[in-house]
């Protein structure tokens, strides 16, 4: 790869990916390095501030988001392993910091943040990562990625190149019921929504539910485990790292 095409990618690892799904981050590091890019990861930021923001506590959200915003100021390109946190950085920071001195920084950040699958397909124009994953899978669109960032074809393009993989779509794009603090504030509604999602996925006959959002998968896998289901969940990055 010519040095000019080599990118310096700043990886933003959200707290729950760091603590519970490290493999997702490690897979992204491996994939990006295999493609010849340099990966860096600021160690002192861990959250986009979405829980407080979504709960309506914008001042408290700015206390977290402000640090993340400033730490990512000098980044060339920011890649994020979650459509939801990605939407927070790309879309909602501009609202959160509107009218503050950080507004220009939020606008600048929006232009250089990419959700992982979008970064590969749209920015790097890479679809075939040489992955092999012989299984029948279905894809769950995380709502923030789908509707705030308009990520729909990117993960499917990537999956279409995976050896041995068969993608079976679910009939509807419907929320899994996670919704951040919603899952704890209204656990019964959240659970019912998740059960509907799991049933839709089961009807496709898929062995795996793939998504580009670990938060949705944490909720879905949590339900599947409790149901004793044999269906498993896997993050897109982990799947693509399988060779």
């Amino acid at each position, binding site marked *: 790869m010519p040095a000019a095409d080599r990118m310096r990618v700043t990886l933003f*690892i959200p*707290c729950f*990916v*760091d*603590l*519970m*799904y*490290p493999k*997702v*981050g*490690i897979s992204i590091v491996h994939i990006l390095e295999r493609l010849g890019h340099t990966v860096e*990861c600021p*160690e*002192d930021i*861990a*959250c986009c501030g979405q*829980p*407080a923001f*979504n*709960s*309506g*506590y*914008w001042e*408290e*959200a700015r*206390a*977290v988001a402000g640090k993340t915003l400033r730490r990512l100021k000098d980044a060339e390109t920011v890649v994020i392993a979650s459509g939801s946190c990605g939407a927070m950085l790309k879309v909602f920071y501009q609202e959160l910091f509107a009218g503050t001195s950080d507004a220009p920084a939020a606008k600048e950040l929006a232009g250089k943040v990419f959700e992982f699958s979008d970064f590969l397909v749209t920015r790097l124009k890479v679809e075939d990562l040489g992955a092999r994953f012989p299984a029948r899978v279905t894809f769950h669109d995380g*709502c*923030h990625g789908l*509707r705030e960032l308009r990520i729909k074809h990117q993960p499917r393009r990537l999956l279409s190149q995976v050896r041995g993989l068969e993608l079976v779509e679910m*009939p*509807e*794009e*419907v*929320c899994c*019921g*996670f*919704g*951040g603090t*919603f*899952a*704890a*504030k*209204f*656990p*019964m*509604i*959240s*659970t*019912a*929504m*998740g059960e*509907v999602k799991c049933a839709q996925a089961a009807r496709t006959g898929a062995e795996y539910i793939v998504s580009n959002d670990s938060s949705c998968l*944490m*909720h879905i*896998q*949590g*339900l599947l*485990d*409790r149901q004793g289901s044999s269906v498993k969940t896997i993050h897109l990055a982990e799947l693509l790292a399988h060779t």
Partner: protein
Amino acid sequence: MNPAPARQFKTDAGRMSRDLRHRELIQVALGKYSVIRDRTRSAYQDWESARDGASAIKTEAVGHLDEYLKEFAQKLEDRGTKVHWASHPEQAREIVLNLIREKKARCVVKSKSMTTEEIHLNEALEKEGFEVVESDLGEFIVQLRKEAPYHIVFPAMHLTRGEISDLFARELGSPPTTNPEDLTMTARRVLRRKYIEADIGLTGANFGVAETGMISITENEGNARLTCALPKVMITLMGIEKIVPRLEDLALFLPMLAAVGTGQPISCYNSFYGGPRQPGEADGPSEFHVILLDNGRTRLLADPEQRDALHCIRCGGCLNVCPIYRNVGGHTYGTTYSGPIGSVITPHFRGLQQWKHLSYASSLCGACTQICPVKIDLHHHLLQNRRNASRQKPSFLESLAFRAFAVLINSPGLYRFSKTLGRFFQRFHPLVKGSTLDPARAWTRTRDLPPIARQTFKEYWRTRQ
């Protein structure tokens, strides 16, 4: 302590979410609807441009509401209609009651109108001893059950044919049947007599056309036409936001309302009413009254951030796609307007602190915003309601929790320390998992929680440096 509507919502939502029979009924019905709707939408050359067009017309109408309302009222009055203005529900109810008393009426037949639900008109009329008959089949059914409409377009969608048969047998003495045609005929036999007996026909309005001074009513059963045509006096209750500037605007709105509302290319009957019977005309009501209702709408108009909620054409599309609505059902909301649009506007109409819980009862998935034919930014308005609610009256505990979280997450040392603490305590978690002693019970009652990894990403990253 949470306000009563919040407690009621939480209790009912918990019960309905576990009701598998209800879940199956609604998922199947709305699953079929979404297939038909998408087929109808695919006949549009460019659905997104149609949405842009509809949104632009409504932005214009709502942005100049004062002028268009004046024009609308003037045109109506020019042809002999009496226009009434009501700021509050009681005023609107009083106007209707006075008209009934003035005409010495006894029986009122109604076509479907959510605005009359909003002002609780039926109860008010019945309390004064007048008979009110709903003529829309779904509304007729829920009226017999003494229930509020379950959905703004499909009022009785929560009932099976068997339940409707039982209801008709009990209330109307008809023989049991699950044949939809027979059930419809039973209702029709009752209703046809009522149209003739009624002294007053009361309707809602889907649109009010400023340019021509006309009410536009959309329906599938022909009941609204009979409600307007047979009784001597016609009353229409309409929210002030239902205005469109020009008649030609309906060329866009009528098909879009049908497409998202029911999946039809166009509804069976779309009728325009321009006034009472004119000299030389053979039929129609001899008197026509239009009541224009505010009831909080001007408050919404004054909010530049959420003003677009007044674009709503009450198609019910956002309810149909909402995964929360699909699981908790229409009655759980405890509001006239349920689903996402109800969660957005009810706090404006009836108080933010009392009704903010509806804005929190959302995963913010955005399916509502995506379907809305007039492009109301519904799920972002839910976020704004949350922001406004906690700004106005912050919860001390929640604010404290988020402040503590900020300190913890911003300090790498504290973050590492809490990780160590978490690892220590999670060893004992299986002992209390899902029980009332479990601090994570809201999650673990129905879901497993993954443990903190043996090596977190940050720990992995350190080993690489």
